[in-house]
């Protein structure tokens, strides 16, 4: 009885020491992995910052205006191009007859004008 207890204790001690060492090395490994990840994170963050800065630099309004002036047919929005939903005429003729009725029901103000 006593002997088995002692043997059990010895085995337990051995197991625990082994476990402890294992744990220690595992922690050490994880720590170096952590440092590695943090390094990657920092350099990644730094890269993101550089890209943000470059993005802001390339999107300077002056540059965009110049580029769009040279390569696009876009013009600044004129007031006449803007209108409110309630000012849209209801499509009443042929193809969208039903649709128009529907939209007239959905948009009471628009419908009200044509009636």
């Amino acid at each position, binding site marked *: 009885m006593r002997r088995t207890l002692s043997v059990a204790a010895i085995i337990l001690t051995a197991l625990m020491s082994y476990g402890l060492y294992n744990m220690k090395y595992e922690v050490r490994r994880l720590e170096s992995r952590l440092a590695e990840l*943090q390094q990657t994170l920092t350099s990644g*963050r730094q890269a993101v910052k550089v890209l943000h*800065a470059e*993005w*802001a*630099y390339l999107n300077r309004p002056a540059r965009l205006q110049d580029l769009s002036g040279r390569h696009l047919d876009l013009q600044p929005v004129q*007031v006449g191009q803007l209108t409110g939903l309630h000012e849209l005429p209801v499509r009443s003729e042929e193809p969208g007859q039903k649709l128009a009725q529907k939209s007239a029901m959905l948009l009471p103000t628009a419908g009200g004008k044509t009636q």
Partner: protein
Amino acid sequence: MSVFRRKPRAIAPVAETKLQWSDDAEQILENGRNRLVVVGAVFALAFTLVGARLIDLAVLQGHDANQTALNDEQRPSAERADILDRNGVVLATNLITASLFAEPRRVLDAADAARKIVLALPELNEQEVEKKLSGGRAFIWLKRHLTPKQQHDVNALGVPGVGFRDDRKRVYPHGNLVAHVLGYTGIDNEGQAGIELQYDEQLSTVTQKASAATNGDPLRLSVDVRVQFALQQELSRAVEEFSALGAAGIVLDAVTGEVLAMVSLPDFDPNQARTASSNAMFNRASLGVYEMGSTFKAFTTAMALDAGTVKIGGGYDATKPLRVARFTIRDDHPKKRWLSVPEIFIYSSNIGAAKMAVDVGAERQKEFLGRLGLLQRAALELPEVGRPISPSRWGEISTMTVAFGHGIAVSPVQLTSAMAAMVNGGIRIDPTLMAKQPMDTPQGTRVIKTRTSSIMKRLMRLNVEEGTGSKAKAAGYLVGGKTGTAEKAVAGSYQRKALLSSFIGAFPMNDPRYVVLAVIDEPKGTKKSFGYAGGGWTAAPVFGRVVSRIGPLMGVAPVDEESKSVRNAMFIRVKAGG
């Protein structure tokens, strides 16, 4: 029975000895057991405590440990926080650069090293480098913030005793655009002007703070780069067109007090602030104080109407110039007749404004302008905020000149903020450069009645339709405003040719949201403006163009200015009884 009582018994009969032995041994064993139990209990208790603590740490406080690990994450030290505009566009950030340093004690041949380094970095002076390298110091910077190519070149030299260190350089991607608001930083990224100086502590205290969440959080300004660009471009055009010395402009949200744009021309590039002239560095929009001229008539009119000394249907005689002591007050656009209050406003009559102010009185005028924040420094988040200059003795003559904006000098920020109170329903709100939460509408203080504010809106609209501000029109946007043309006081007397021309207005006038100010410093008349250089010819068109450009950006719905409902809403009787 204690063990210590035991004495050796050398000679004893065998049987007796045996009996004695077993008796003693039992005693000893008993004692030993007792002690073991005590020691075992102590150990067991200790291990139980350790075990409990382990469970406590690993299971119960496991969450905290995770947090600790997260906090432990190494943030780049001394990383200055970014500055963003209201839409999150980067205005100021840091980039990692390499800086070249030397350890002179480890340099073998200073002369040779200096010659080589200057070969790679021609902008350095060979003698100076040699002097630095031959001094017996342990560490010395040779050049900060090298470009990658320079770094490569220097590295290729293989000079012993020099090396690179990661350094951080403050970068302003938008260059000149927001220069005066942002300010700039020195070689060690310490704030030197503008927001960078004002919030230096907040921007630079990044590490070793309790909560990780607030660490390095960027600073969000109220400025919108798109609006800023529109204002800057239109002001630059005007400066060029009228060969002006400079210009200043502000776009202010009249409801929240947020400054959407603040421009001062000439400007500088904060990336190379050291090369900028002091004239370019000077922030005309907040630090400069100027006699603003006729734009003050808006305040005079509001004050008189609010105090009830004159009704909107009333008026004053402006037939003859007003003589007070040795001064004569004339009108720039003389009508030589009795003028109603709206007429005084739209024809910008100095005589009328002066008489209006005299009826209110010096005391009440002083108190009113004080409430509008025109007599003390603006509460703006910039180190460069100018102190206004007001008359030391506020007599009758001061009352009269202040009524049309002379004898009192204020900064453009103060003027804009005070004008916002005229049109937003009568509430004065401190201007701010910090972005506010959408629902965060500041309290402010009431300065004029809502009714008076409503009249002011109509008067300002009328002034654009029929008065001096007609060039400020922006198709589709209901704008209103007041021109100002002040002669600059140089060496104690007013100069007829040196003008400060301005226009301040708001839109949309039926429910003003944005106040826009354009000030042009010493414009010269051109053929196109028939030689005129007043606010109506130089600053008003800038206002109109800025509004046309920022209106769609800010989501202001255009209206038909000629429609009946709009006209009715903006109606005001110009001629008394007519």
